[in-house]
């Protein structure tokens, strides 16, 4: 009887501790296909949170990247955002509109110190971090060493060297550097770090409030000119605007391209889809620089970052979930499972792939912004990027068009 009373009392106390979270469903949404029921590390993460919070059920919703932002837009317009979600390029606007929680009001400095600086900076607007990077990323070139040996060239240190070697690649029947721009999001990834190589600042350009900052400035024109020179010299595949990311990767897997441009998450894709020839022969290198010894600026940051809906009835629980998934022991499960560039510095040890570890080492030396958040910026840059690649616009005209489109989108 005594035992029964104690058990009942414990149950009452347990219920009293978690009264707000009892029988609550926490809605989580991302474009990461691995964050669904059935993936070991995600299932373990969710189960751990549910065990620590009795009565809570985490509902994981996956929306493919190609449909994610339109889904998010529809959810914003219909006021039906989930509790925790990837804010993507809408993070800045949503945060400034008061729809996202400012994490600075919730977490202390020690919490933020866990993150790599670049990914954290990317989702901080007006000194307010509105989202926390799930995995970080950095771009590089993946090289088929067998083909390079056959062609008789070395990995290019500079863009000029790459252009000069094009006839050798062509004579051997290879595309020098493959990637695809059908979805329009890869060209800005490639182009914006070139602006940094020419001394520009993509963050300042995106913000577009500092005096003298404009998209038709010299670093932008120079970067567009280099992009066009690379395209016209035959560095990229023919019809790059009609090739998607997967087709670009196929060019590398099938041994048609000597090099592939991509982010730090692609070694995970290689492991699943790559041909034996590719997997046996590929190495990773920094993107070329302007001159020998110059900084090899390349895209850094994070695509996916967790934001909390400030208007959610489950806001406190959502914040608890975010704190939980970034707890080093829990985060390590995801980092180990995904084998992608972790956003937390402490999780680097979880990465077994030496190529990814090599890329992580560039974060402190060669990283530059490659994602735009300001109204109209991404559309303006991605459209001009396409025209620059197919030669239908000059660099000067392109830079002016970006500036005009951005200003028009901002009502100026």
């Amino acid at each position, binding site marked *: 009887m005594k035992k029964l009373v104690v058990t009942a009392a414990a149950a009452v106390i347990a219920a009293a501790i978690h009264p707000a979270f009892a029988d609550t469903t926490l809605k989580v949404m991302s474009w990461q296909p691995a964050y669904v029921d059935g993936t070991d590390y995600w299932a373990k993460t969710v189960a751990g949170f549910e065990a620590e919070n009795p009565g809570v059920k985490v509902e994981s919703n996956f929306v493919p990247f190609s449909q994610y932002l339109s889904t998010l837009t529809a959810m914003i317009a219909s006021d039906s955002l989930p509790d925790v979600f990837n804010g993507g390029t809408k993070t800045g606007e949503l945060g400034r509109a008061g729809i996202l929680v400012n994490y600075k009001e919730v977490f202390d400095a020690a919490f933020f110190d866990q993150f790599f600086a670049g990914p954290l900076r990317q989702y901080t607007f007006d000194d307010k971090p509105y989202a926390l990077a799930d995995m970080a990323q950095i771009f590089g070139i993946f090289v088929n060493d067998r083909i390079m040996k056959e062609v008789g060239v070395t990995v290019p240190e500079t863009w000029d060297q790459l252009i000069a070697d094009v006839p050798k690649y062509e004579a051997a029947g290879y595309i020098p550097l493959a990637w695809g721009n059908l979805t329009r999001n890869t060209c800005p990834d490639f182009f914006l770090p070139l602006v940094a190589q020419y001394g520009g600042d993509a963050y300042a350009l995106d913000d577009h409030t500092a005096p003298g900052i404009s998209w038709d400035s010299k670093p932008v024109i120079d970067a567009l000119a280099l992009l066009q020179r690379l395209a016209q010299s035959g560095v990229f595949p023919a019809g790059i605007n009609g090739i998607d990311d997967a087709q670009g990767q196929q060019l590398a897997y099938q041994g048609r391209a000597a090099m592939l441009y991509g982010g730090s998450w692609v070694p995970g894709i290689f492991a699943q889809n790559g041909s034996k020839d590719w997997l046996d022969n590929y190495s990773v290198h920094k993107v070329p620089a302007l001159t020998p010894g110059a900084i090899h600026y390349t895209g850094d940051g994070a695509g996916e970052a967790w934001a909390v809906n400030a208007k959610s009835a489950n806001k406190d629980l959502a914040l608890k979930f975010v704190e939980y998934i970034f707890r080093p022991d829990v985060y390590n499960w995801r980092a180990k499972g995904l084998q992608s560039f972790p956003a937390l510095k402490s999780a680097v040890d979880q990465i077994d792939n030496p190529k990814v570890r090599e890329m992580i080492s560039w974060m402190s030396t060669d990283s530059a912004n490659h994602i735009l958040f300001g109204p109209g910026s991404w559309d303006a840059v991605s459209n001009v990027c*396409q025209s620059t690649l197919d030669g239908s616009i000059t660099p000067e005209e392109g830079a002016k068009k970006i500036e005009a489109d951005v200003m028009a989108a901002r009502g100026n």
Partner: protein
Amino acid sequence: MATQSASLSLRLRPHLAPILFIAPAGVALLLLMAVPIADAVLLSLQNWNGMGPPTWAGLGNYTKLLSDETFFRALGHTAYFTFCTVILQTILPLLAASLLNSGIRGSSVFRTLYFMPVVISLAISGLLWAMLFEPNFGPINNFLRAIGLRAYTPLWLAGQNSVMPSVIIVSVWQSFGFYLVIFFAALQNVPRELYEAAELDGANAWSRFLNVTVPTIWPVTLIVIVLNTINGIKVFDQIWVMTAGGPNYASATLATYLYSIAFGAMGASNSRLGYATAIAIVILMLSVVVSLIQIRLGRRRNLDSELEL
């Protein structure tokens, strides 16, 4: 007074049953069509990014369209796509249906084969064709290279000039079987005696086609033309899957432009839902006006034919 209401009730009684039958569909149409359309018209008169409250813009979104260069490019592409698909997706299935109806062997096999693309979703067929059109290792360019036409390998979806013809090819391939089946069914109803009479009068096959087949199935042809026109004006999914309206709006139609304004291009922000809805209203008006003109012209032609007879 009582006599008056009794008389009104008596006059309404014959209409009661039809009204009751029509009412459920009428209410459903009102809720699912009329209310959203009215809501869309209202939204087209406002500026709204989906986050804050909308602000009144009056006709501002419509006047902005008049100075929007990309809108007119998209309108031009829509007209081009509609014109080509109306011609090709009417004439080719009609000719093929006539051939199959002439009693050639294996007619049902051909009909099945032609119809197969119709059952594939537009998104899937778009992805398949994107692979076929891939300029570097796609099967089409590989074939052209293999037969010595290396110099004539287009960039297909990646070329500013080749992208619209490419998406038209896919549209014709996808819908050919659907319209063929419609024409084939219509041809089955053409009385054999008309052909026999024409043959006795010395009409050859082409003349019989022009003077017997075409006028007899004209109402069906008109439906096909109207369907193709409406589908052309609102074309979206196939183009979005294959090109997202690119490169740089070279394949943008009104619907893909609307979508990119409402939801941004891939990875974009800055939704302009009021402006996008104004484009949607333009699409709706265009579809209604063009269809009405076609139906009116079709009826006049029918009347002329009857008078001639």
